[in-house]
């Protein structure tokens, strides 16, 4: 049985029914969504199943959607089946007031640093992570810089002439 997107979707729906939803195929990559309480079950199934074998975590990061109340933070998992060279992506959404998501470190060792980075920049609290602390930014930082409530640059600066840096001014 060839591992096509339709087949993966069929297997997932057999197993989880309505708990996996919002299937899309942007640029041919199967993308779906699940509740944040189910992320480990879905991952475990994708990892252990004799046909699916998604045993490599390519990437794990988060996206901030400030104008989606209750679903502000999306944690995105990119999984890769190295045997059949198939990739899928799935997302779990969480509210920004309580961004608790179960950690994937028990399944994928590489999730350790990726989740530390995601915590560092987005403040997602990975429940059960062995060492959840900042990995790239300074420890004294008291905010999560990739959230969109922070402006990209300090708007109050007057000591730098934008003209000199090729942004704003008369140069576009």
């Amino acid at each position, binding site marked *: 049985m060839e591992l096509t997107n339709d087949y993966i979707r069929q297997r997932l729906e057999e197993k989880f029914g309505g708990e996996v939803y919002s299937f899309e195929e942007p640029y041919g990559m199967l993308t779906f969504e699940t509740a944040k309480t189910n992320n480990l079950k879905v991952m475990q199934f994708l990892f252990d199943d004799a046909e699916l074998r998604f045993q490599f975590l390519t990437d794990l990061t988060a996206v901030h959607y400030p104008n989606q109340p209750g679903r502000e933070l999306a944690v995105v998992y990119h999984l890769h089946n190295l045997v059949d060279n198939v990739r899928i992506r799935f997302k779990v959404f969480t509210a920004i007031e309580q961004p608790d998501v179960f950690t994937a470190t028990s399944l994928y060792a590489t999730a350790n640093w990726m989740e530390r980075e995601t915590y560092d920049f987005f403040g997602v609290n990975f429940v059960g992570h062995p060492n959840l602390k900042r990995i790239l930014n300074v420890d004294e930082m008291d905010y999560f*810089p990739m959230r969109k409530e922070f402006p990209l*640059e300090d708007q109050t600066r007057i000591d730098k002439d934008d003209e000199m840096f090729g942004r704003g001014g008369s140069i576009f």
Partner: protein
Amino acid sequence: MPRPVRFNVHPREADIHNNIAIAEMPAGLQGEGFFATSLEKVVGLARKNSIWPLPFATSCCGIEFMATMGSHYDLSRFGSERMGFTPRQCDLIMVMGTISKKMAPILRQVYLQMAEPRWVLAVGACASSGGIFDTYSVLQGIDQVIPVDVYVPGCPPRPEAILDGVLRIQDLVHNESLRRRHSEHYKALLNSYGIQ
């Protein structure tokens, strides 16, 4: 047609009379067999022409500095032949490139490990002001953590600009009073950075 080979049987006389740069003599009294001047001027002259830089190069300005060290621009002409990649025995720390907030304590530590008298040259927009990076991770100018003597503008500055910065440092070194580092003003400056 073989290339003509020049054997070194007639070595050319070294022309030492027109090719050596000699520092100007400080003002003083001279007479038959003696020359008297103030110690400050002699020390300033000696320090000025033997600055040992400590390059602290983190990014593109550091590459520009490598060109400055090379044979074409030749920083060694100014008595800065010896680059020390250590705070030991160095007089001038040249900070070249973006200093992130995470790098700031390390930069400060290197500065503190240098012995007085020490000078600081901030090369390029990033070291001087944070440059184009008005972001959460970049220190907006190294003068937030250590006192700076000379700023070199540019993004990146050309080697000529870096040389000019070194020459400005030389002017400062040359004219600095021997008592400056013990003055109240200087101590207040260091105290404002939390350095004892």
